[in-house]
C-alpha cells in the first residue's frame, strides 16, 4: 500500500515535551476530518537532532522540513500538503528570522557536515515498529553473525573495523570481547551501559528512543560471540520514554524470533532484561554499575580484575556503552571495511555529541572522527548565541576539561582531546561564552562531584569537598593566592589516589581552567572582581546618575525592593540590601544600571 505522503513527527523527549504528541494526534484527527486518512501515513520517529528548532515535522516525499510546529499548524499541513500537494512555506526552515527564503533539507547547515551512522535511523523510522528497522538492513548483522560467522569471525570483523568504546575511555571493543571469550567460566553476561550520567548529555537517550533495535541486535551479537545467554540493559530511571521503547522493542524482537530461545532457528538463545538506575552518577562507572545490577549500593571495586574476567556475579562480563553497541550493528551489517574508511587512523567511525550551552543550534549531532571543533561549533552549531565571544568548550562533563578558542582547529580524536587536557567522554559538548565564569563553572562541577562521590575512598570523598570549599571561597572574594596552589595539590592527590575515575578525574575541570584562565582566578582573589558577573558576591550594581532618566522601572522590578528615587530623577540602589538578582540591570532600557 503506497501513501501519497508520509508525515514524520519527532517523538524524541525534547520535542515530545514541546507538544509533539499533541501535534501527532491532531494530524491524525485532521487527516480523518479532511477525508484523506488513507492518503497519508503519520509516524512518530526518533530525534531529528535539531532540538533547538523543535518540534520538527518532516513530510515525504517532498522532504519538507517544518520547524517549531505547533498543534494548531496540523490543520494546514493536512489541508495544503496532503490535500492540495503544496508545502506550507511559513513553517519551512529558514536561515534566519529576517529572510523568508526557505532552505532545502540537504542545504541546512546543521546537517551538512554531519554523518549519521549511530543516528542513521533516528528521525527516519518509527522506533516502535520492528518492520521499519528490518527494512533498513536491521538484524542482517545478527543473521550474518549467526549463520555466516564463527565467534572468532565477529572478533576479526570488529578488529578490522577499529571500533573503540564510546563510553569515554576508548578501549578497543574487539579486545574487550576477546578477553571475555578467553575468560574461564560457563556463565557469561552482556551488559549495556545506558546510565548516561554526564549532566548535559543525551546522545544515548536519543539513540535508544530513536532506534532501540540497534542496541538489542548488537547485544545479541555480543552474546553469541562471547557465549552468553543473558544480557542486561542498565538505564537511567529518568528516561521513561527510552525505557518504554526498549520494552516494546524487546517484545517485538521476541515475537519475530530475533530474541529469546533458538534465535532464527540457529539453536542460539539469548534473553534481555531492563534494569533501572536510581540517580547515581558513579553507577556509570562499570564496576559500580555491576554492583548496582546486583541490587547493592553502587560503589566501585578495585580493578583488576576487570569485568571481562570477573564481572556481574563474578562472571566474565562485557559491558559497553549504548553508542558502542549501535556501531556494532552497523559494522556487522555493512562490513568492517566500510566502517574503517570513516574517521582517522586511530579513531574510526563517527562520534555523537550533545551540543548545548551558549550555542545557536543546540541539538544532537554526529560527525566523523577528525572533524574539528570549529566545524561543530560554527558550521553545525551556527556559532555562539547573541554574537558573543567563545570562552571555551567542555567535553567529558565533570570528568573533562575546557578547550579554549586557540585549539578549535584540532581534529577530534580520542588522543587529541586527551592531549588538550580534556577527554572524549561520552559526548557532552558544552559551549561557554564570555558571560560564563571559570570559577563558577569549576565550582559547579565540583559540587556535582561532592554530591556524587560514593564516599568509599578518602581522596575523593575528602578531596572533592575541600576543593569545593576553596572554590566557594574564591567565588566569594575571600580566597588567597595560596589557595590556587592548594587546589592544584589536592587535585593531583585525588587524580593519583582515588579508587575510581570519578575521583580520579574530578579535578580536571578545575585544573584545566586554572591552566587556561589563571588570571581570572587571580582577579577574583586580588581585585574581588568577577568579570563575567556570575559570582554574585562580587558583583555590584550601581545606577549611573547621568544616564538614568528616573523612569522607575527598575524600582518596580526589584524584588527587595531596594531602589529609591523621585520620578524623573536619578534613582539609587541601596547596596547593603541589594540581593544581586540583576533584575534592574535587565530592566533598564537606558543602560543606566552598571554591573561591576
Amino acid at each position, binding site marked *: 500500500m503506497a501513501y501519497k505522503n508520509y508525515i514524520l513527527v519527532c517523538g524524541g523527549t525534547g520535542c515530545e515535551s514541546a507538544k509533539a504528541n499533541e501535534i501527532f494526534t491532531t494530524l491524525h484527527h485532521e487527516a480523518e476530518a479532511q477525508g484523506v486518512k488513507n492518503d497519508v501515513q503519520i509516524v512518530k520517529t526518533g530525534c531529528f537532532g535539531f532540538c533547538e528548532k523543535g518540534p520538527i515535522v518532516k513530510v515525504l516525499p517532498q522532504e519538507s522540513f517544518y520547524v517549531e510546529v505547533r498543534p494548531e499548524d496540523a490543520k494546514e499541513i493536512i489541508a495544503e500538503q496532503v490535500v492540495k500537494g503544496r508545502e506550507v512555506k511559513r513553517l519551512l526552515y529558514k536561515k534566519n528570522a529576517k529572510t523568508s527564503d526557505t532552505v532545502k533539507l540537504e542545504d541546512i547547515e546543521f546537517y551538512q557536515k554531519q554523518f549519521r551512522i549511530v543516528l542513521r535511523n533516528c528521525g527516519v523510522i518509527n522506533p516502535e515498529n520492528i518492520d521499519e528497522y528490518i527494512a533498513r538492513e536491521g538484524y542482517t548483522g545478527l543473521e550474518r553473525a549467526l549463520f555466516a560467522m564463527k565467534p572468532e569471525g565477529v572478533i576479526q570483523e570488529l578488529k578490522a573495523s577499529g571500533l573503540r568504546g564510546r563510553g569515554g575511555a576508548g578501549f578497543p571493543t574487539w579486545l574487550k570481547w576477546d578477553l571475555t571469550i578467553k575468560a574461564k567460566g560457563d556463565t557469561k553476561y552482556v551488559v549495556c551501559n545506558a546510565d548516561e550520567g554526564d549532566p548535559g548529555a543525551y546522545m544515548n537517550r536519543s539513540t535508544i528512543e530513536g532506534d532501540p533495535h540497534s542496541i538489542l541486535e548488537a547485544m545479541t551479537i555480543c552474546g553469541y560471540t562471547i557465549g552468553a545467554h543473558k544480557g542486561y540493559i542498565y538505564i537511567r530511571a*529518568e528516561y521513561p520514554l527510552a525505557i518504554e521503547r526498549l520494552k516494546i522493542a524487546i517484545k517485538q524482537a521476541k515475537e519475530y524470533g530475533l530474541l529469546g530461545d533458538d534465535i532464527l532457528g540457529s539453536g542460539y538463545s539469548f534473553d534481555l532484561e531492563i534494569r533501572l538506575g536510581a540517580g547515581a552518577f558513579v553507577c556509570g562507572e562499570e564496576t559500580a554499575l555491576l554492583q548496582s545490577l546486583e541490587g547493592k549500593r553502587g560503589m566501585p571495586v578495585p580493578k583488576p580484575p576487570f569485568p571481562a574476567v570477573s564481572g556481574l556475579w563474578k562472571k566474565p562480563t562485557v559491558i559497553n556503552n549504548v553508542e558502542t553497541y549501535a556501531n556494532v550493528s552497523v559494522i556487522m551489517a555493512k562490513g568492517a571495511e566500510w566502517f574503517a574508511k570513516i574517521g582517522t587512523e586511530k579513531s574510526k567511525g563517527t562520534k555523537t555529541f550533545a551540543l548545548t550551552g551558549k550555542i545557536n543550534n543546540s541539538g544532537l549531532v554526529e560527525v566523523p572522527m577528525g572533524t574539528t571543533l570549529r566545524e561543530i561549533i560554527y558550521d553545525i552549531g551556527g556559532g555562539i548565541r547573541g554574537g558573543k565571544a567563545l570562552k571555551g568548550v567542555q567535553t567529558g562533563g565533570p570528568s573533562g576539561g575546557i578547550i579554549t578558542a586557540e585549539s578549535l582547529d584540532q581534529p577530534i580524536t580520542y588522543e587529541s582531546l586527551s592531549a588538550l587536557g580534556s577527554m572524549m567522554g561520552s559526548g557532552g559538548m558544552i559551549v561557554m561564552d564570555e558571560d560564563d565564569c571559570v570559577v563558577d563553572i569549576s565550582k559547579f562541577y565540583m559540587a556535582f562531584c561532592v554530591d556524587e562521590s560514593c564516599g568509599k575512598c578518602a581522596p575523593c570523598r575528602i578531596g572533592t569537598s575541600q576543593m569545593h570549599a576553596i572554590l566557594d571561597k574564591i567565588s566569594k572574594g575571600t580566597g588567597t593566592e595560596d589557595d590556587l596552589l592548594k587546589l592544584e595539590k589536592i587535585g593531583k592527590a585525588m587524580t593519583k589516589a582515588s579508587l575510581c575515575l570519578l575521583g580520579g578525574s574530578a579535578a580536571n575541570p578545575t585544573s584545566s581552567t586554572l591552566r587556561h584562565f589563571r588570571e581570572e582566578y587571580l582577579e577574583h582573589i586580588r581585585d574581588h572582581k568577577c568579570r563575567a558577573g556570575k559570582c554574585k558576591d562580587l558583583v555590584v550594581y550601581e545606577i549611573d546618575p547621568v544616564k538614568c532618566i528616573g523612569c522607575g522601572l527598575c524600582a518596580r522590578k526589584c524584588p527587595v525592593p531596594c531602589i529609591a528615587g523621585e520620578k524623573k530623577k536619578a534613582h539609587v540602589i541601596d547596596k547593603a540590601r541589594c540581593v544581586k538578582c540583576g533584575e534592574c540591570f535587565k530592566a533598564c532600557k537606558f543602560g543606566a544600571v552598571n554591573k561591576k
Partner: protein
Amino acid sequence: MPAAQIEFSKELTAFIDEWKAKPGSLIMMLHRIQEEFGFIPRLAAERLSRSVGLPLAKIYGVVTFYHFFKTTKPGKHRIAVCLGTACYLRGAQDLVDEARAILNLKDEEVTDDGLFSIDEVRCLGCCGLAPVLMIGNEVYGKVEKDALPEIIAKYREI
C-alpha cells in the same frame, strides 16, 4: 505485637512476588514501591524486608545511596528543576531560586497545603531545551523566570 501494616495494591504485591526470585532485583522493587507511594514509606520498607527476607538495614543502605529514592513524602506536584550543566549555563539556578521564593520553600520542604515541593535534578536529557523543568510528567523547556508564576498557578487547580 503485630507489626504495623501498610496497604500494597494487588499490582505491587504481584510485582514483588514476580521479582523477588530474580537475582539483584531490590532496586527494581524499590522503584515500583516509589511509583505507588511517591516515596519509600518506612512501613513499606519494613514490609518489603519481611516479604523478601532482606534485613531492613540493607534495604535502607540501598535507598539512601541512590538520589532517586525519597524517604519523605513529596508534594502532590513535584517540581523538578534541572541543574545539569546545559540548564545551569542558561540560568537554571535563577529558576530554582525563583520557584522557591514563589512557594516560600527551602530545600526539599513541601508547601503547607501539600501541593508542591521542589527538587533539584541533574539533567532530564532534554538539554536542547535548556533550561528545563518538569512538573509531574510534563516537561517545560526554555523556561523564563517570569513564566514561573503562571506555570505553577496551573497546578493549584488540579
